[in-house]
């Protein structure tokens, strides 16, 4: 399959959420992503979009998010940049999965799920922007598909 690219830019991620995911699904279809792979990429970006809307831009008057995806035969490379508060998800400690449900902290699950569903996840800063780079294997889903 030829390399295909996707770009989505938003100055209001809360408002643009539904449009972003609609365009993402359409892009996945154009790339022939399997439904389980498409679902996993949506889930990864759902978690990140929630993080952006809920935390990164909580005090920002001028949000800016740019999502770029390059889809090749076996891998999707996803880059999300934002001008929200500095945040490094790759450095975040994984939750303790062995704690009883009663004692489990509420936070941290979304980032953990993003890591588990990705082939690699790196994050850093480029000037005033957070940069998140994710590689997603398109050949084999992490989660089992519906039978």
């Amino acid at each position, binding site marked *: 399959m030829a390399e295909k690219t996707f770009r989505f830019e938003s100055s209001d991620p809360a408002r643009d959420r539904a449009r972003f*995911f609609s365009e993402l699904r359409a892009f996945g279809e154009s790339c022939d992503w399997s*439904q*389980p792979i498409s*679902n*996993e990429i*949506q*889930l990864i970006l*759902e*978690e990140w979009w*929630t993080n952006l809307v809920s935390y990164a831009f909580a005090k920002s008057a001028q949000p800016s998010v740019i999502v770029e995806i390059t889809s090749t035969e076996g891998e999707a490379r996803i880059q999300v940049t934002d001008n929200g508060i500095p945040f490094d998800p790759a450095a975040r400690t994984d*939750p303790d*999965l*062995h*704690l*009883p*449900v*009663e004692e*489990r902290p*509420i936070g941290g*699950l*979304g980032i*953990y*799920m993003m890591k*588990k569903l990705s082939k690699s996840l790196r994050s850093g800063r480029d000037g005033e922007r957070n940069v998140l780079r994710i590689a997603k294997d398109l050949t084999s889903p*992490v*989660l*089992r*598909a*519906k*039978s």
Partner: protein
Amino acid sequence: MPIRQNVSGDCYELIVGGRIDGAAANEMEVQVLNAIKAGAKEIFINLSEADFLCSAGIRVIMQYWRQLKPQGKRLMVTRPSPAVDDILAMTGFRESIVENAGARA
């Protein structure tokens, strides 16, 4: 996908399908709260038709699982789809919040 509901006495089953993203998790919480207000003693969240479950959805389930347990009531997940079953296992909740978790989906 709208949430369907089956009620039998004080036992409520909520069937939540499709992509359980942040918006769907909010809707699921509304339905759980409605069931609690209506006097539910058991709430079963049937996820057999769910494509995925985001962390906001897990938080809703975890929150009301915790809230109901000390009252002698319960909220459990039933029949998770394979993908959702894997998500619950991945996040360490499967054994506690899935009814009959020993029987793998």
